[in-house]
């Protein structure tokens, strides 16, 4: 089933003259892990917000086109209804803490209480997500006392507890240190293994190459291409779009070491290593 269908989505923020999104169309299958890359102001965040309904319901503005998420029309549903199908985690771990709850355990329930979930079911879900996100040992801590990485995992847990089939992450590791970032990537991997459809905006292209099924390159409010990491990162004009390919891709490009089957350059360390070894063997 197509989890996400976007058709000719156009959007302009209020008080703005230019379109932030200029006719976006794409589809996502259930269980896919999509990475989004592109320079700042390319429209990546706006697209994320359009998937969950913040665009247009929170921001207002001028909107046209279709966005359908798990069969629900974004335009014709409100954000609370959509939150049952799709969730979003933002860049700033701190502003995603509601502040109304005193423990990590209670913090996760915030969305569930709003949805009117029955108490027994609430407890089941909380235990499940705390375990999945490795937060059990912090369940009685005050959310404000967590580290950045822990806070982001808490944000993810709070969203996943609402059981959306899709989660969007908009630069979730930008403000974290390497350990925190690694924690988040591991968490997102667990989610992917559970079959959850994931859309992630990231600047760390090496990680995008490592984890995603397909990569969307955005520029100037539009999609340049949506394809495998290898294909996207092998593009010759990638730098024009403000994206630098993973160092492994750049290395193999300089040495003209391609994957014989696809004609593309490798995007991950593992792939690059294998090809390099073969290359050295062939040379000697």
């Amino acid at each position, binding site marked *: 089933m197509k989890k996400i269908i976007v058709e000719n989505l156009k959007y302009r923020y209020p008080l703005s003259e230019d379109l932030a999104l200029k006719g976006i169309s794409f589809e996502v299958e259930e269980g896919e892990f999509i990475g989004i890359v592109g320079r700042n102001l390319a429209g990546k965040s706006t697209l994320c917000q359009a998937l969950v309904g913040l665009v247009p319901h929170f921001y207002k503005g001028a909107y046209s086109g279709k966005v359908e998420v798990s069969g629900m029309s974004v335009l014709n549903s409100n954000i609370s209804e959509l939150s049952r199908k799709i969730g979003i985690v933002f860049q700033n771990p701190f*502003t995603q803490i*509601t*502040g109304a709850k*005193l423990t990590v355990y209670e913090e996760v329930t915030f*969305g569930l*209480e709003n*949805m009117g979930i029955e108490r027994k079911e609430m*407890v089941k879900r909380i235990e499940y997500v705390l375990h999945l996100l490795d937060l059990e040992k912090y369940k009685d801590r005050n959310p*404000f006392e967590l580290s950045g990485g822990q806070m982001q995992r808490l944000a993810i847990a709070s969203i996943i507890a609402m059981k959306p089939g899709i989660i969007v992450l908009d630069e979730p590791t930008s403000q974290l240190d390497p350990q925190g970032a690694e924690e988040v990537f591991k968490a997102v991997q667990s989610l992917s293994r559970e079959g959850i459809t994931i859309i992630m905006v990231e600047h760390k292209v090496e990680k995008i190459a490592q984890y995603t099924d397909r990569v969307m390159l955005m520029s100037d409010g539009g999609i340049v291409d949506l394809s495998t990491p290898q294909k996207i990162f092998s593009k010759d004009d990638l730098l024009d779009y403000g994206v630098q390919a993973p160092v492994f891709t750049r290395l193999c490009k300089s040495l003209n070491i391609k994957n014989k089957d696809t004609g593309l350059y490798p995007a991950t360390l593992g792939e690059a290593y294998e090809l390099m070894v073969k290359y050295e063997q062939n040379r000697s």
Partner: protein
Amino acid sequence: MTKTLSLYVERNTFIHRIDPINKVLYACVVVAITFILPYELVGALLILVSILVLLAGKVFRKVIPLIEFSFIIMLSIVIIQGLFHPGNRIPVFHIARITFYKEGLLYAFNLSMRVVNILLAFAILVLTTKPSELIEALVKKGLSPRFGYVLSSALQIIPEMISTVDSIMDAQRSRGLETEGNIAVRIRAFFPLIGPVVMSSLIETRERAMALEVRAFNSKEKKTFLSERLAIRSDMVIRVSLFVMLVLSIILKVLL
């Protein structure tokens, strides 16, 4: 330790377990009775009851600084009323050439007892009730959940925002802004400090509003609650007793 704006003292007493709504009702009834029956005996009795409740809640010691503070207020009431109360006729004592009158002193005494009663009754509420539990109880009874959220989040977020003032001061001082010195210096430092405080608060509030939205904050579903406060028998008993006390005082007022 995270700061919360709250005076709640964690203890495991019966008083702590009483329904928060009942404690609110208690405070209201006490205040009402001090107005309905403005007699010294009544005032003293109520003070005694509140003190006993505070002792039972093991929080009496926390009230003492509060009482000390109210002494200052009461002293000024005594002085003003003792000297200038209209209807002052019978002098009681002199200090130098200033005369204190009986009617005024009596009035001041009554007023002071009312102040202490109000303080003690609310102290019981504030010291023995977790703010989150009180707010949740109110929401369960019909308070708008959005307003309930504003109240409960304010308790944690305001202290957090205050701590960002330090970061802002650091940043501006680093750019050569003098913050110490005479009054002119401090006034000049005001805008470079207040500007970022306001802007960053607005930005944070907006980000938080979006995060709340996607957690179904504006959902029209009937809200459920993780915590169940199982009603105890004394809840009903207390509520009925309070109601009876109120009715009795009205009856007494009419009779006397």
